[in-house]
C-alpha cells in the first residue's frame, strides 16, 4: 500500500510538468489551430538560457523570471519572422515549419551548450518546510508553480481586454479584424505566451530529469497526451489531463508494463482519445444556431 501511494504521488508530481507542457500546446492551438511540435525543444532551449544565467551568478528567481521574459520575446519573434509568412499556407506547410524549428532548436542547443548532461538547481531544495512524506519539496513546489501559471492565464484571458482580443482573434479572425484587433499580432502574443509557459515547464522538469538537448522529447509526448485527453481547446482540461496522464503512466509503469515501455502509455492515450472521444474529456462542442 505504501509503495502504491508513492507511485500515485510521484505520478501527480510528474503530472504537474505534463500539465504545463499541455497548457502551452493548448495556448498555441487556441490561437492558431495548430499543434506546435517544436514546443518541447523551445522549452529545453529556454531552460539552457536559465542554466547559463544561473552559472553566470544570477540568483535563481532572477534567472527564472528573466528566462520567462526572454522566452516570451523569442516566441513572439519566431512567430513574426518564421510563421507569419506561412500564416495563410495549408496546415502541412506549418507542420513542416514546426518540424524544422524542432530540429533547429535541438541542434542549436547542442551546438551552444554541448550534449553533456547538466544538473539544474531546484528553487525548492530538500528540507523546505512544505516537504512531506510522499512529496519532495520540489514536487509540491512545481505543482504549485503550475497552478499559479494556470490561474494567472485564466485571469489574463477572462478579465483583460488583450486576453479577450486574443480569444476573439483565435475564434473568428475576420470579425476580430472588423473591430480593429490586429489579428496577426495576437498570434504572435499566443506564441510568446506558449514559449513562456514552456520555459516554466522546462525549468521545473530539469532538476528531475537533468538538462540535455533531448530533455523534453518524451515529456512533449506526455504533454500531447495531456492536452488531447483533457480537450485540446480547454486549458483546465489540459491541466487535469496532465495529472491523469502522470498517475496512469506511473502506475502502469510500476505494475503492468514496466518502466521501459512507459512512453507507450502516452501513445495509447493519444490514439485512444482520438478514437473514442476526439473532443477530449472536457472539450466542449460549440453550440451554434443559424
Amino acid at each position, binding site marked *: 500500500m505504501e509503495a502504491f501511494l508513492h507511485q500515485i504521488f510521484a505520478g501527480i508530481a510528474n503530472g504537474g510538468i505534463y500539465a504545463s507542457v499541455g497548457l502551452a500546446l493548448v495556448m498555441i492551438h487556441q490561437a492558431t489551430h495548430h499543434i506546435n511540435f517544436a514546443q518541447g525543444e523551445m522549452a529545453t532551449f529556454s531552460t539552457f538560457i536559465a542554466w547559463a544565467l544561473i552559472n553566470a551568478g544570477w540568483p535563481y528567481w532572477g534567472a527564472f523570471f528573466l528566462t520567462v521574459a526572454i522566452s516570451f520575446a523569442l516566441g513572439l519573434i519566431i512567430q513574426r519572422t518564421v510563421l507569419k509568412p506561412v500564416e495563410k499556407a495549408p496546415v502541412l506547410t506549418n507542420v513542416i515549419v514546426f518540424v524544422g524549428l524542432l530540429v533547429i532548436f535541438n541542434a542549436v542547443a547542442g551546438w551552444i551548450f554541448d550534449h553533456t548532461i547538466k544538473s539544474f538547481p531546484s528553487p525548492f531544495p530538500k528540507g523546505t518546510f512544505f516537504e512531506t512524506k510522499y512529496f519532495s519539496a520540489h514536487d509540491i513546489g512545481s505543482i504549485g508553480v503550475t497552478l499559479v501559471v494556470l490561474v494567472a492565464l485564466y485571469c489574463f484571458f477572462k478579465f483583460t481586454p488583450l486576453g479577450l482580443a486574443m480569444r476573439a482573434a483565435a475564434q473568428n479572425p475576420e*470579425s476580430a479584424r472588423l473591430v480593429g484587433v490586429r489579428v496577426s499580432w495576437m498570434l504572435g502574443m499566443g506564441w510568446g505566451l506558449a514559449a513562456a509557459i514552456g520555459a516554466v515547464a522546462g525549468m521545473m522538469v530539469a532538476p528531475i530529469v537533468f538538462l540535455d538537448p533531448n530533455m523534453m522529447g518524451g515529456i512533449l509526448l506526455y504533454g500531447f497526451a495531456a492536452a488531447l485527453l483533457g480537450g485540446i481547446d480547454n486549458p483546465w482540461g489540459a491541466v487535469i489531463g496532465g495529472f491523469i496522464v502522470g498517475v496512469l503512466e506511473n502506475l502502469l509503469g510500476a505494475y503492468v508494463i514496466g518502466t521501459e515501455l512507459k512512453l507507450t502509455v502516452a501513445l495509447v492515450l493519444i490514439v485512444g482519445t482520438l478514437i473514442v472521444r476526439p473532443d477530449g474529456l472536457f472539450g466542449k462542442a460549440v453550440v451554434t444556431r443559424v
Partner: protein
Amino acid sequence: MPELLEVKGLKASYGPTQVLFDIDFALAQGQITTILGANGAGKTTTLRAVCQAVRTSGSVLFDGQQLVGKSTESVVRMGVAQVPDGRGTFTALTVEENLRLGAYVRKDKAEVAVDLEKAYARFPRLKERRNQQAGTLSGGEQQMLAISRALMLRPRLLLLDEPSFGLAPLIVAEIFRILRQINEQEKVSMLLVEQNANLALGLAHQAYLLETGRIVISGPSETIRNDETIRKVYLGH
C-alpha cells in the same frame, strides 16, 4: 453637404477574378446611402473594398483620407464599423464580451460603459442574455448584437451588409426602425447594402444600383423608388 465617403474608380478582385469594375459612389455626412443589387452583383465586395478586406485599387476617400492601401484594422481605428455578412458573431464568447470587443480600440473606459448601457437599453433582449454564449442567440438577436457591437466603436461610418438577411419580417421592420433612429439621433452615417430594395429605399437618402460589378443607376432614393421603369427592369416588381 460635405462628402464623408467618396469612392472613385474602385476595382476589387479575388485572385484572378475581378468583381468590381470602376465603381463610383458617395455618401454625404450624416446620411444613408444604399447599394442595391441581386446576388453576386458585388454588394458585399463593395463593403469589403471600403474596409480593405479584399484586394482593391482606385480611390476610397474617407473624410479626405485615402483608405486604399491601409489595413482593415487601421480603417476600423479611423471610425469605420461594420455589421458583416453573416453577422460575424463571436459564437463562443458571451454577449457582453462581444459588445466589449466592439469598443476594443477605444481608450475612454467610462464612455464605453455608458455606451454598453445604451446598447442594452436599445435592445433589452441582449441585456437579458448578457452572460449567455452568443452562438445560442436567435438570428434576429445576433443581428441586434452585430449592430450593437458595431456601434460600440462610436463609428462615424457604419457599413451594413444585408441586415435583413434570413430574418422574419417583423424583426426586419424593428431593425430598420432602429437603424433610422440611430441615424437621426446619433448622426451616424451609413452605407447599407441590401437585396430588399423596398426596405432599403425607404431608409436611405441616396441609392445606387449595382449589376455584375458596375453601377448602372444612381440617384436619390425617392426618385428611384417612384420610377416605373427602374422598378420593373431592376427591382422586379
